[in-house]
């Protein structure tokens, strides 16, 4: 087929989606170019703004470094313990407060106002109670995650349709059966959202505590790069940590949406 047979028409305007995609690519490319230009310009300290090539090489180095994975495992253990302890206590407290209007009015203001205070300030006390090992980091993570989970559980319990509870009562369900056959399925969406918030805050609390006083964990690795001024490795570790936190957040968000939150 010859090209001459194709009629020459005015090119159609780009669709909105294509323009959005192009703009996204342009923004990313511009940011990378600006970064690289700053790194090579000599206007800033080379160590503070290292070249992207150097950061990517450091990222590769971190990913094949067994030290990174052993420290990641420690942080994962601390965060896992934190979310387990903070989650179970938050769930229990939220369940009690959600079921009693009187207790909710008495104690929920404490949760509401203490929730947004910075939990890292409790770290000196937690060191006294749990020592300087992983226990105090897990405790800080648990304390951080307790508040969003308790508040989310209490609110979710209050939103359960009373008809479901009356149906349960007509079947003579025990308290435990009512909890896991009616409450848990009905609140799983908002509860997953509460755990999502709790997990994010538990990661922050645990890693911050590691940067303050620790000899292991991802927070310790990050603060080590600061003390040795290894900026490329610091960028690599921060990028990996941010990626893990954002991916976990996205996964739990998707799960919460699937549960109807």
């Amino acid at each position, binding site marked *: 087929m010859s090209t001459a047979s194709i009629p020459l028409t005015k090119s159609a305007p780009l669709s909105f989606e294509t323009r959005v995609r192009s703009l996204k690519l342009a923004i990313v490319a511009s940011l990378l170019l600006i970064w690289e230009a700053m790194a090579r310009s000599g206007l800033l300290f080379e160590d*503070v703004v290292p070249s992207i090539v150097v950061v990517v090489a450091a990222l590769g180095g971190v990913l094949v470094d067994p030290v990174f994975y052993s420290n990641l495992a420690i942080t994962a253990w601390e965060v896992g313990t934190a979310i387990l302890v903070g989650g179970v206590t938050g769930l229990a407290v939220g369940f009690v407060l959600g079921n009693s209007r009187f207790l909710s009015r*008495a104690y929920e203001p404490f949760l509401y106002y203490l929730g947004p205070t*910075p939990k*890292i*300030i409790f770290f*000196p006390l937690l060191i006294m109670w749990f020592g300087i090992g992983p226990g105090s980091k897990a405790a800080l993570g648990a304390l951080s995650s307790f508040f969003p989970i308790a508040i989310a559980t209490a609110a979710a319990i209050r939103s359960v349709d009373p008809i479901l509870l009356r149906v349960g009562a007509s079947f003579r369900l025990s308290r435990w059966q009512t909890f896991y056959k009616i409450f848990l399925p009905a609140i799983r969406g908002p509860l997953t959202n509460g755990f999502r918030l709790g997990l994010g805050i538990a990661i922050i609390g645990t890693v911050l505590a590691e940067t303050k006083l620790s000899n292991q964990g991802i927070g310790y690795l990050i603060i080590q790069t600061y003390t040795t*001024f290894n900026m490329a490795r610091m960028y690599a570790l921060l990028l990996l940590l941010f990626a893990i936190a954002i991916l976990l957040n996205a996964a739990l968000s998707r799960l919460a949406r699937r549960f109807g939150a």
Partner: protein
Amino acid sequence: MTTSFRRRDYRPAALAWASLILVFCLVEALIRTGVLSVYVVPLPSSIVAAIPRVVAEESIGRRLLLTGGEALGASVLLIVVGTGLGILLYRSRLVRAATENWIAAFAAAPLILAYPLFLVIFGRNALTIVMLGFLAGLAPMILKTVEGLSIVRRSLLNVGRSFNLSEWDLFWKIHFPAAVPTIFTGIRLSLIFALINIFGLEFLINFGGLGQLINELAERYDLPGTYVAIGFVILVSVCFFIVIERLERWLRPGG
């Protein structure tokens, strides 16, 4: 005509205060009987007794001013830059569609974990604290500004158009004032994020006002003083949240 009085129920508040006092008494008794070590948990009575000492000797007023100054710096930056970027995003549908998800992801990013990076860039000073506080609160400020401007009632805009208002007047006389309550929600959220990060960073880098005080007292092993300082930070945070919440309610239509 009958007058009905709705009595406020003080019993929940009474229970809450009674519980607090009970916990204090219980901890005091457990320490005095030797069940809890006084080297781990100080006597609640010694914490109360330490309040005047900490207030007098640790220059609480100066520290409060320092933390307040940092919070004010971050707030001004947040309101000016956050609202400005929000307005720009609202006015350009293309840029909004390209960046809104990124801004939402930025809001979920644990930015405070990058504080060693801020220390390298800005140094160990108040600027680091202000910048981290500002960046921590930026995303909610932008998103709420965009949301506020997007939900303005069409009828209000039509009234403006019927008066032949220019685009500029339409924005500043109708669009923006109608969006102010939602924008204020953004200010509240972003200031909460900023304040959490400011206190946290002061403690972590041992610089500044109230956050640093906790670190200093803990390093001196002044346990009652540490508890007092923590209590003071909680009190300041709670007062701040209450004030800003009241302001937001006052600004909301029918609030």
